[in-house]
């Protein structure tokens, strides 16, 4: 019977050997570090815009507005990003000393190639998002948004940045980390007050085609 000790032979009690719950907490911390720090590092790759673009220079230096490039077309569709042709209206020749501008002209303007800008909030094709329906005019029926405030509800405010933010691409889905998920749309779409005034219900086919 003497051999059938339930406790280690060295006489240490169990709580003292591994601190009782200590391994559990070690595992917990490891998992938390892995999940909240390492996992995002592994899941997203970092990308940079193909051309270094300064919104600040264009807004402050050239006196342009957001809608100079990001405008609604006559048919109500959204132009989104400017084409190389529209950039070339000013940049057919270098306007400054920045070598990046010279590279842009050489690689894109002179060849007519479009810049493959990385869009932080690009929605998948199964989502129909109309910028026209979410215009300042329509939202300001009740709100009092400035253009920047309204755009910033979904997009990062880059108006005063000299460098475009890093683009994090999900390695699995290939979407941007900042692509809006449905819950963010539902902040307004599932809000009964919005439905009353905008008649934009939360029904599937309002957005999904």
């Amino acid at each position, binding site marked *: 019977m003497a051999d059938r000790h339930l406790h280690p032979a060295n006489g240490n009690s169990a709580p003292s050997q591994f601190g009782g719950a200590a391994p*559990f907490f070690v595992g917990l911390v*490891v998992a938390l570090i892995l999940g909240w720090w390492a996992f995002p590092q592994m899941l997203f790759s970092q990308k940079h815009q193909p051309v270094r673009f300064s919104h600040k220079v264009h807004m402050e230096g050239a006196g342009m507005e957001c809608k100079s490039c990001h405008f609604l077309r006559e048919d109500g569709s959204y132009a989104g990003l400017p084409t190389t042709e529209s950039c070339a209206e000013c940049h057919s020749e270098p306007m400054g000393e920045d070598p990046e501008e010279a590279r842009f002209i050489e690689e894109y303007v002179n060849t007519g190639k479009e810049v493959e800008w990385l869009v932080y909030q690009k929605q998948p094709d199964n989502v129909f998002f109309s910028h026209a329906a979410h215009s300042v005019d329509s939202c300001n029926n009740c709100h009092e948004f400035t253009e920047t405030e309204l755009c910033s509800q979904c997009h990062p405010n880059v108006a005063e940045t000299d460098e475009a933010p890093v683009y994090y691409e999900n390695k699995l889905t290939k979407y941007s980390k900042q692509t809006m998920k449905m819950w963010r749309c539902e902040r307004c779409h599932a809000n009964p007050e919005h439905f009353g005034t905008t008649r934009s219900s939360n029904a599937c086919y309002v957005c999904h085609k």
Partner: protein
Amino acid sequence: MAVDRRGFLKFVAGVSAGVMVTPIPWKLLDDASIWTQNWPWIPSNVDGASTYVSTVSKLCPSCVGMKVRLVGDRPVRVLPDDNHPLSKGGISSLAVAEAQMLHSPARVKRPLKRAADGAYVAISWEEADALLAEKLAAAKGSLACVSGDETGSINDVLSAMTGKAGSSNFYLMPSEAQPAAKAVAAMGGEGQLGYDIENSDYVLAIGANILESWGTVIRNRAAFKATRPHGEEPAATFVFAGPVQNNTAAGADQWVPIKAGTEGAFALGIAHLLIKAGATADAADFSAFARLAGTFTPAKVAELTGVNEDQLKDVAKALLKARRPLVITGSEFGQGTGAASVLAGVAVNMLLGGLNRKGGLKLLPVAGPVVDGAMTRAEMLGKDFVAYMSRINAGKDKAPAAMVFYEANPAYALPQAAKMAEVLAKVPFKATFTTFLDETAMLCDLVLPVPMGLERLDDVATPYGSGQALYCLARPVAPMPAHVKPAGDYIIALAGKLGMDLGVGTWEEVLQAKARAMGADWDSLMDGNVHVSSSTVNAQPAFGAGMLQKGIATKAAEGDYAIAPVHKLNVGTAKTAIPPYNNKTIRRWELQGKELYVAMNGATARKLGVMKHDKIVVSNKSGSISARVNIFEGVMNDTVAVLMGLGHTAFDQFSKGKGENVMQLLTVGFESGTGLSVWNMAGATISKA
């Protein structure tokens, strides 16, 4: 410090608990679900400004006008064109698929030559040019040419080339325009029959599936819609007589069931009642016609057609009461009818004073040929390809040394299709100008890819069924694939190589000449406008009573059951097969998986001892098809309705091997008097499989 088992388990428990409060499982699950939706073959939207180009469909037999939405130079959507007289805000289910069909897997991407082992090998255009020129030169006039384009000036070029090669064997694929042309000729008239549906207050369609597939169907639908303003009384009555309650019957105010192929007898029954009520017409052979119509008493017509006598009398009364009645005869499936049936329909219109009258039947002017040596339209429509093939089969005519097809698929589309393919096999050299690798291309020695209508400059001149003469251009709205060539310029150059002078240098010259012949302004046409003419041909036609008497069918079809093919544009044509997305529009009990369903009414099913879903074999001396049974009370007794456009053995996975081709069962006969080949009255026996 050693880790014992218990400690390790505690660690694992900690990791497990910790992981659950991190994004790992939840984010991975969410991302995995998104990942499963992003397969590389799913097409993606193209960003960019939209532009719209007005053009006309060369793919859809209705020649519907359409607006193509482009992003950059890529067509992304086909939309109705409010300003086009053949669209009027409507679009066909075939035309709407054109933007997608540009990317069809069945498209021929480069010239193909049949190698010695029977397989196709891709060759260069230079090699293809040399082979075609060599074979056509060697044929020395033993040439036949078949065109599947009924409305284009390409027929001027093809018929001129055939003629200059020393052959008169230029043919159009069978359609309703041919019996109509024969009928006009028999009446001593001129021009093309036109139907002013828009201005009629009573439209009687006998067999003609005017709201689904007959003639300028989208324009017909627009006229139908215009007479039915929402919330108001309809301004016109539409009546359909035919064996199946098809979409025209479903939309019409009245469906008069008559047996397949008895349209002429039904029209003569109406004529009999009209003459009895005092109707007359200023035609030389009126009395001969009246004598003929006198024999078509309601009782006889009821026996021949299966119509209810009272219904026949009611229709005749309503026609007499209407201010601007119009009678349209045709085939429910757009082909195979005889000239007598058209003559009978025209006769009723003449008795109603409807010839060249607003809301009536018109004789529309036709432009003459614009290429040296080309056939006139009347000459083209007078040629009968099915009769020619039958003569070759019977040994009465020699098979030509070479046959050239232009956007035609006779190996699938002709009646007794299997037999026709056998006859084609007797032709030593066959070449086809085609967009898709169809059944005929699979029989050819040389396959030459041509651009689709959206990628080429082409034209449409007064399609059959139109109420007015018109001319418009199909303009290239999308870039042409690298290795395809437009046929117009190619054939003109080929003729030059063979030493033929067609009197034109380019395809555009041909179109410009045609525009002038039609009285149209070229610049306006190139802007997407349509030239429309309200002029008609003045004529005092006769009834063609002699021809009518010989041609009118008074015999029943062979076999115990009649076959009623049903034509729907969404299923595509012999040239297109089923457009990929249109597979979704085929109904559950028309095609289930790869099995064809045929429709019959409850009484017929009881007689046969079959129930819904039972497997049957429909056969006659021409062939047989197996199918399952669907019960539909909108089919006449002893009649089986069979959807056309299925049973392809070529094209792609969206069409190949689905269902059966009803053309296998349609037996060719010849109309007395005109000698025209007819196949609108097929009978069959049905047995349980």
